[in-house]
Structure formats: C-alpha cells, structure tokens
C-alpha cells in the first residue's frame, strides 16, 4: 500500500507537473490486491490499467483487433491455433458488420434501411445460431469466442463489397461473381478451420454446413445489391 500512498501524496503536492507524473504508467507496479479475473474473462483487463494514458488503452485494443484480422487474412497462422484468439472482443465484429451493412445500403437507393437491418440481424443472429449449433452438437467452446471468430471472418466479404462498389456499373456479371466468390471462399476457409476443430469428426459436416450457409447468405447479398 506504500506506493499507493506515495501516489496520493504526489497528486496532492503543489509541484508543477506532478499531476502528469502521477498518471504515467512507468512508475506503476502491478497492484497486488486487485481481485482475480473470473475464468474466461480477458486477463488484460485486470492489470493495473487505470493510470495509463488513453492513447495506450486505445492502441492496445486496436492492436488486438489488428492481430485477429491478421489471423483471418493469413492462412499460415491458422495452423498454430493462436492463443491470443482466446481474448475475444466484439468491437471488431461490430465494426466489420456496420461497415458491410453501410456499404450495401449505400448502393441501393430504394430501400437502404431494409438492407441495413437485414444484414445486421443476419450477421448477429446468424453468428449466435451457428455457435449454439456447434455447442449443441457437443463442441466445447466459449460462446463469445466463437461469435468473435465468425464476426472477424466477415472481413473478406467486406473487402469484396468495397471492391464491387468502386467497379463501374456495367462490369460483366461474371467478374462480380468471381470477386464475391473469392471473398466467400476466403471467409469460409478461415472460419471452417476454427469451427471444424470444435466438433468430433463424425459430426464435422454438421458443424461446418451452418457456417457455409451463413457466409453464402452474406455473399449472395453482396452480389445482388
């Protein structure tokens, strides 16, 4: 407790600049008497992070999002079953979902709100249902970790939607189909690597088919809007 009192004294002192020094993270050893995190919660939240500058907090979250995106983009990383994936977060899926819904609703002039709502509901309800399916088939995963991975794997379809938006209106249908097909294949491969490992071999197709249907639905949306 001595260092805590030291910090309080520093804040209360009248020296100029002492307030700034009190809040730098360099002189804050981890406090020993914080409560232990409950099992399954991201461990990082329980370090002594109260005194760090906001930029550090935001950068840490951005780095986590970036790491998970690299997992989706890079086939090599899938083999190592990255440990950091245990730290699920829902910021990434939310950003990607909103991005996809906004791009698709910009492209249609007649009923943007219907499209936005449909995409949003499909992504979140779909991720929920696919995860429940995996758990009911006997898979052992934390619920939010699975929703997190499914959400992050929407990223290739985001890129496909963005590409299609910037193509001129009269590109032949086959080229659009090829781009969306590539995005769909990429999403599904990334996701199946994770979901397929959750269930036993004899139920693998049963666990993977809903993932396939989920991304197929989204890909079809990207294609026809």
């Amino acid at each position: 407790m001595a260092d805590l009192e030291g910090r309080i004294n520093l804040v209360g002192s009248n020296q100029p600049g002492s307030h700034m020094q009190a809040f730098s993270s360099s002189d804050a050893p981890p406090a020993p008497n914080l409560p232990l995190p409950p099992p399954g919660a991201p461990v990082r939240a329980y370090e002594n992070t109260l005194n760090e500058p906001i930029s550090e907090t935001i950068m840490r979250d951005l780095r986590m999002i970036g790491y998970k995106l690299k997992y989706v983009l890079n086939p090599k990383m899938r083999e190592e079953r990255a440990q950091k994936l245990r730290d699920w977060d829902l910021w990434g899926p939310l950003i990607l979902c909103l991005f996809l819904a906004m791009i698709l609703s910009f492209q249609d002039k007649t009923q943007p709100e219907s499209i936005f709502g449909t995409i949003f509901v499909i992504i979140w309800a779909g991720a929920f249902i696919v995860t429940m399916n995996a758990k009911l088939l006997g898979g052992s995963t934390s619920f939010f970790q699975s929703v997190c991975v499914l959400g992050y794997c929407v990223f290739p379809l985001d890129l496909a939607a963005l590409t299609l938006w910037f193509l001129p209106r009269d590109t032949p249908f086959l080229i659009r189909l090829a781009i969306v097909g590539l995005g769909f294949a990429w999403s599904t491969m990334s996701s199946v690597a994770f979901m397929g490992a959750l269930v036993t071999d004899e139920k693998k197709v049963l666990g993977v088919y809903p993932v396939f249907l989920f991304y197929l639905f989204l890909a079809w949306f990207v294609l026809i809007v």
Partner: protein
Amino acid sequence: MDTNIRLYNTPASSGPAYLPPAPVSADSVINVSQEGQTSAAAPINTPAPENKSIIPVCGLFTLDYYKPFFNVTTSDVQERIKQAFIPNRPHFFPTIQSNPDVYGPFWIYTSLIFMLAVASNLNYIVQKKSGDPYNFDFNCIGFATSVIYSFGFILPLILNFILNIFGSKTRYVEILCIYGYSTIVFIPAALLSSTGWSIVEWALLLYAGGSSSVFLMTNLWTELEKYILNKRYIIMGLIAASQFLLVLIIKFRFF
C-alpha cells in the same frame, strides 16, 4: 441403505436408467426413500445429463436439455434426407423413433428460407423486362423466415396435440422431425422454379406439396391405422391442407 432412482421418458436411448445415489438437497425433485426400499421417483420429463445427479426443475432453459436432440452424426442425417425424398415407403418413422433430431428440421428450414430468397430473386431477374429498374424486395426474407419457422414448428405442435387427443403416444420431437425432413423436397423445387414459366412453377411446387403430404401420411400410418376411418380422414385432410397452404403462400409471395 440402497437408493434407486428411475427416470422416465428419457428421449435418448443412451444414458443410464439408474443414477448413483444422489445427495438429498432442497431443490431436488427426486424423492429418495430412506428405508432401503426401492422407490420410483416422480416421473420427470427432463433427460438426465450423464454426470449430474441432481436435476433442476427448469431444465428447459439449460443447454443440456436440448443436447440429446442433436445426437446425430453426418451419415445419420444423410441417410434420413435420402429417405425423405422417397415418399411412399414407411421406413422413416421407425428409424427416427429411437433418436429423433432437431438438427435436420431446423437447418432444412433455414436452407429453404435462403433458397426461397435466391430463387425469388432469380425469378424476378428472369421475368423483368430490360427497361425496368432493378429493385428486389428484401422484405420477402423476413416474411419467409416467419412463415417457414411458424409452419415448421407450430404445425407439428398442433398435429401432435391432435394425435395425442386421439390416443397416440407420439412425442412433439418425432412429429417435428418428420415434418422437417418432409420439407426437404421444397428446396430443389424452389430452386428449379426460378426459371420463370408459370406452369413449371406450379408443377414443381404441387409435386413438392404432394410428396411431403404423402411422406407424412405414410410414416404416420402405423399410428393412423389404429383409428376409425373418420379420425383418419380428419388427420390426413389436415396434413394435406397445411401442405397445400404452404404451396400457395410460396407461389404467390415468392414467384
């Protein structure tokens, strides 16, 4: 002191019929006799998880309650789907009676919703003249979801209720399973109906409705033949009418 606990109505054939002696606790619904006589517990409708010895009252809200209904392998589901395409053989019902599953019906309904949306869009593209603006109505997806899920889950409930009133001992899950697998015929029918000719659409959808009705009737025949003729016709009429209603809704809303 020997305590034996029996559970009735466990849907899965696996799982022990007798559990190891359970500690008596305040929220247990099992009556345990203390004098060494074997006593049957009050009939409980929840299936027992393998390693728990106390069953909470409201098992309906736990995940473990539903796990026995997903106890199928890939080859099981493939086999059931293949059998569902052949409407006039009654071999489906005995197969599933020991292990009905909810996985098949649920994902068949979801695939049907997707297929209806795709086919409806294709049909629209094929049918519109080249000068018309392209505005596909996305609200049909919400409509499809509500219609298919209500047909798929509530109709078996009604049918099971009526069958139980007439004296059968069928369970909701079994009827749901038959209904779900009978709907599989609609998926290729919907996909092929996107060609745009009205006569083809009608033919395919009527075939799908007829095939699923015949499948339902054939597989429930073991139950139905126990009734007198009037009751049998009531049920057969109900089944045929509900499938035909589904065909009409699909045809007029999506194509």
